[in-house]
């Protein structure tokens, strides 16, 4: 009996090993030389659906534009998934040469020395960095090193339903918090909410920055909004929810943003806060005219940067890195930046974009784009330290606790954020 079991086990194991061999003999995934002598490098991106098709088209265009380098674009899922896979790939020594990564994850990779300092190429070629929009290039530096180029960048904006605005007799989107409250009240009727926003750290942070706060304090020992700039947005949301003029979309993280856009498209929320990158998608799905305005402000105008950068990962040969640099330049040049912005709603990353005819035509067709571009200058300097990921979760957590649970005041929530973030720095 025992023997039979053992025999079964051995058979099963040898089958398992055989199948293992089959998949193991595949090609080296990170980099290789193709049959026609071109250097092959891998490029990971996080773009699905139509954005994914466009990024593939741009990659194809790069491959056709020359015959030395072949770039293989691989979709790795959402920003979070891609970052997880990247960490696993790095520890296994299988990282791609170039990847599109969410800007917030910059600190994690840079801090452990996994990113290539691009300054050497910039110096060697006298590559013009000044053409990049200043607010966007800030998020490309870590410890004074240039380790990324801006690519799929976005900022939070306020979308509004122009039809509902016209019905309520409101002409322009709200500029200040008071106007936001008043407009939302005027717009709320017949099952329509005036305003909806995910209980997410990005939108909270935008409002907090517009009230004069910063994510971290100057010494980087805790948060920089443990005052009225931190409690203000929470009071604003609480008041509006109590007044019945604000809807809270269900779900977490990206789910809640999707829910938020759905109720806007369905016409049940007249104003929502979302990423500027959603512009094209919203304009397509909504059967009413979509307007765009800046996030209403209290005292200042500043936004936390969003979206992703292109980064080059260390551990490859000089040849491969040089090939990666060529690809980086191609993806972020003026022409492709406009193509990318036009097809997706991400920001044009270069100042020279605005002078091009293609861009001018684009803005003429869709004035909403101009509103977005006008706001790029307010993107605040980013501090993407490795603690950023956990900080974001702590903020989101406390916001939700404050809004969803009774007897937890904004002061308590912000104090708790301060304490918990301070712990990260110990």
């Amino acid at each position, binding site marked *: 009996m025992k023997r039979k079991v053992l025999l079964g086990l051995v058979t099963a*194991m040898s089958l398992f090993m055989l199948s293992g061999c089959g998949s193991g003999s595949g090609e080296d995934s990170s980099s290789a030389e193709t049959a026609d002598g071109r250097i092959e490098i891998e490029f990971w991106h996080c773009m699905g659906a139509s954005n994914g098709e466009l990024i593939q088209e741009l990659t194809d265009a790069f491959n056709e534009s020359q015959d030395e380098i072949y770039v293989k674009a691989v979709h790795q899922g959402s920003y979070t998934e891609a970052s997880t896979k990247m960490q696993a790939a790095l520890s296994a020594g299988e990282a791609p040469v170039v990847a599109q990564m969410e800007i917030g994850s910059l600190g994690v990779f840079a801090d452990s020395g996994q990113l290539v300092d691009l300054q050497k190429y910039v110096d060697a070629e006298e590559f013009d960095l000044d053409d990049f929009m200043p607010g966007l290039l800030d998020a490309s530096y870590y410890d004074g090193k240039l380790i990324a180029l801006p690519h799929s960048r976005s900022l939070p904006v306020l979308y509004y339903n122009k039809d509902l605005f016209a019905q309520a007799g409101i002409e322009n989107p709200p500029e200040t918090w008071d106007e936001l409250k008043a407009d939302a009240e005027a717009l709320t009727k017949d099952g329509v909410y005036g305003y909806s926003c995910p209980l997410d750290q990005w939108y909270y942070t935008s409002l907090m920055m517009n009230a004069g706060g910063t994510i971290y304090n100057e010494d980087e020992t805790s948060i920089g909004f443990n005052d009225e700039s931190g409690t203000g947005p929470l009071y604003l949301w609480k008041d509006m929810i109590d007044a019945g003029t604000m809807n809270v979309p*269900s779900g977490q993280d990206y789910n809640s943003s999707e829910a938020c856009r759905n109720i806007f498209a369905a016409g049940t929320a007249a104003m929502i806060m979302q990423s500027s990158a959603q512009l094209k998608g919203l304009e397509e799905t909504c059967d009413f005219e979509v307007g765009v305005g800046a996030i209403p402000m209290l005292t200042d105008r500043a936004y936390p940067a969003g979206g992703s950068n292109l980064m080059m990962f260390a551990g490859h040969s000089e040849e491969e890195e040089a090939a990666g640099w060529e690809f980086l330049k191609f993806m972020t040049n003026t022409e492709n930046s406009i193509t990318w912005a036009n097809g997706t709603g991400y920001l044009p990353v270069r100042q020279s974009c605005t002078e091009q005819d293609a861009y001018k035509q684009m803005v003429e067709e869709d004035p909403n784009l101009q509103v977005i571009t006008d706001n790029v200058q307010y993107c605040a300097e980013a501090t993407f330290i490795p603690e950023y990921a956990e900080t974001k979760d702590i903020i989101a957590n406390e916001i939700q606790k404050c809004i969803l649970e009774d007897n937890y005041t904004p002061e308590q929530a912000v104090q708790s954020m301060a304490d918990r973030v301070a712990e990260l720095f110990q």
Partner: protein
Amino acid sequence: MKKKERSASEKRDRLLGIVTASPAAILLCVFTVYPVIYLIYRSLFSGSLISTEKEFVGIDNYKEILFDETFHKVLMNTIIYTVLFVGLTMVLAIIIAVWLNGSRQKKLNNMVEACIFTPHVISMVSVSIVFLWLMEPDTGFFNMVLTSLGLDKFPFLSSPSTAMISLVLVMVWKSVGYYVLLVMAALQTVPVSIYEAAELDNTPKIRTFFKITLPMISPTILFTCVVASIASFRIFDAVNVMTQGGPVDSTNTLVYYIYAYAFRYGNPGVACAAGVVLLVLVCIMTYVQFGVSRNKVHYQ
């Protein structure tokens, strides 16, 4: 002399044993023993997954989770989830299995069986996405039904007080079919003669159930309870897709906490420490399971 001979054949047997068992043993070492040892070793270090420098920090990571309120909440959530899930699943599985077993309508039986079992083979991620739509508080199907019946809307996953029970309901819907099959298999091993004797005595149906059926299948029930508990201690997919642990950590469970620390916060040391805690808890449950199957499960 004789003694020596025996030991020679013993040696040969031994060698054969080692040779034949080694493939399995090697795989076990590579994929189970080594990761466990590395898990414990790594839990004593700081530094991210990708950083080249790791610093020995002793039991600091354990101290961190021990004093972390989130970890306490996560542990509590995992236990609450397990109790609710196992309790609900087993009660439902027994009721459905007994009903199916007693019913004589073959066609209906097969259909019901298929319907109940189907969710088990669907991928957890698709199930999660579908339920995310169904449970949408404003526009979701469930709330549409509730409001059309004149009832209040139920917040489902969007409120900290109802998110956990919503998650449990989805998981019960998904896995109850599997447990129905297990219980049905057990029911078929109960000798008909006992039921015939009960029938002769005119025993009421309910009494038959509690005095005969339940005790006869109790070994299987105990066994499946433990297996289900171990499985639900490791819940991850549904949490990751549906709630990301929220709102306000109300559905944050042990494995999701481990995932967040390892891959999102770049702190695998803490994740490993939490992993060791999970390992110990699952070991205890497995021990209980062995105890149960040794003492209570008797085959006929």
